């Protein structure tokens, strides 16, 4: 058993790696949402002057990384690792951004849980003294996700009530071991893949909620903490349906979320007036909300300690068409308030 482990699935970061800066770059629809002014940059057009939406996704990813570095005043030559991923096949947006940034790159795929995955691994690298600073990023694009997982953009299709809308955007964080910081990572719980047999790719929330409940329960058992020990428990992109399911599952498991404050990033990206049904999804959802809302509130001391848990539906169109069920995964990171806190 590793010496920094607490319980079966949770690890502690004794040196509390610091989140030095963060940035979020999002599309126009996200820019009209409630977090509008909190994003670092809102695109006027989802194509972002590129030839294809895949190229746009890559450019957005790169833009977020560059803005994040600029805010921490760290030149890219000093970055010792980029940990990141997206939803494209072969995580091409992150890979192409890494090509342009020319930094050591470890590509990640955790579907929409990628931001938490990168924060956990980044914190390990920093805490263990293997690399600092480390750039962690995750992004997605509505237009590339639609064509890869669903239908062409101009195809006339009715969305079901449980369907979610993929966020166009990337969130990036710079982790380091010294200097001013927004927040620190205290511990993390790495989730296991949970599959309760859902096949409906239009109900991602239901695919991911059991994994979220599993990771939360393990976190509380491993750490001996209770929901009330957190000012806010935040899930990535369960959406309206998924977060209602999670609330019920946690009620059954003996760690009711109502003892704390609970929110889902999927419900704070889009304007409720926009017809997005069950909310937002995608790697960029939790990543951009982390940068635009969670870290600033930790920095100002509004929140002292939060549990940030990004959730992913491990879906592939190929296995889905072959009748395979959709497994979910969720990773949780404990974030503590920044300088002033």
């Amino acid at each position: 058993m590793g010496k920094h482990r607490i319980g079966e699935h949770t690890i502690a970061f004794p040196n509390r790696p610091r989140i030095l800066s963060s940035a979020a770059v999002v599309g126009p629809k996200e820019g009209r949402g409630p977090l509008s002014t909190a994003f670092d940059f809102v695109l006027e057009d989802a194509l972002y002057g590129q030839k294809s939406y895949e190229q746009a996704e890559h450019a957005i990813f790169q833009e977020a990384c560059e803005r994040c570095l600029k805010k921490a005043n760290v030149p890219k030559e000093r970055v010792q690792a980029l940990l990141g991923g997206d939803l494209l096949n072969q995580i091409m947006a992150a890979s192409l951004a890494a090509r342009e940034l020319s930094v050591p790159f470890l590509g990640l795929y955790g579907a929409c849980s990628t931001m938490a995955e990168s924060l956990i691994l980044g914190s390990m690298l920093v805490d263990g003294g293997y690399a600092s600073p480390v750039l962690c990023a995750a992004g997605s694009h509505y237009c590339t996700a639609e064509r890869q997982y669903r239908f062409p953009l101009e195809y006339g299709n009715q969305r079901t009530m449980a369907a979610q809308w993929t966020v166009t955007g990337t969130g990036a964080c710079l982790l380091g071991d010294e200097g001013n910081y927004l927040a620190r990572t205290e511990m993390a719980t790495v989730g296991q893949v949970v599959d309760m047999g859902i096949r409906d790719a239009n109900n991602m929330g239901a695919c991911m909620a059991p994994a979220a409940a599993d990771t939360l329960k393990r976190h509380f058992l491993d750490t001996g903490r209770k929901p009330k020990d957190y000012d806010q428990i935040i899930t990535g992109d369960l959406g309206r349906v998924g977060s209602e399911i999670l609330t019920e599952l946690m009620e059954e498991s003996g760690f009711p979320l109502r003892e704390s404050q609970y929110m889902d990033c999927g419900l704070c990206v889009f304007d409720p007036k926009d017809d997005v049904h069950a909310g937002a999804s995608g790697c960029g959802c939790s990543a951009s909300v982390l940068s635009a809302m969670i870290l600033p509130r930790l920095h100002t001391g509004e929140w002292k300690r939060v549990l940030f848990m990004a959730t992913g539906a491990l879906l592939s169109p190929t296995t889905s068409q072959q009748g395979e069920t959709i497994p979910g995964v969720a990773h949780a990171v404990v974030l503590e308030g920044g300088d002033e806190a």
Partner: protein
Amino acid sequence: MQQKADHNQARERYMELVKRLTPKSKLGQGCLRAFWVGGGICMLGQAIADAGHRWLGLASADASAFASITLIFLTALLTGIGVFDKIARYAGAGTVVPITGFANAMVSPAMEFKPEGWVLGTGARLFTIAGPVLVYGISASVIVGILYYFIRW
């Protein structure tokens, strides 16, 4: 064995929870919208066929083909300017079931996969959604033809 039974039971319980908490689409509203839009598209088709018959002197079968081609053209145009999917989002099967649904299923991937090139993008992907329609429609008609040749009902 017991473990597997427990697992299946847990899955079934979860399915029920999901079913209870997932909002349902409105059947009545959906059917009403499909009815008037779908019926409307068919009336437009009839009007085009009648016009073809009256002013172009087309025979009945040709007038019907003329109506189909015109509807397909209109669908292609509306898809191109980004309006068709909005209508379809409202009308559901009202635009899917008429020939407009078939046309949109051809036009939209042709546009979507343009960045992958004219041959392997637009050319090949044109049939991704509507291809099965041709495969099953044509195969069924060939089977009907062969049967008819031998049985002649």
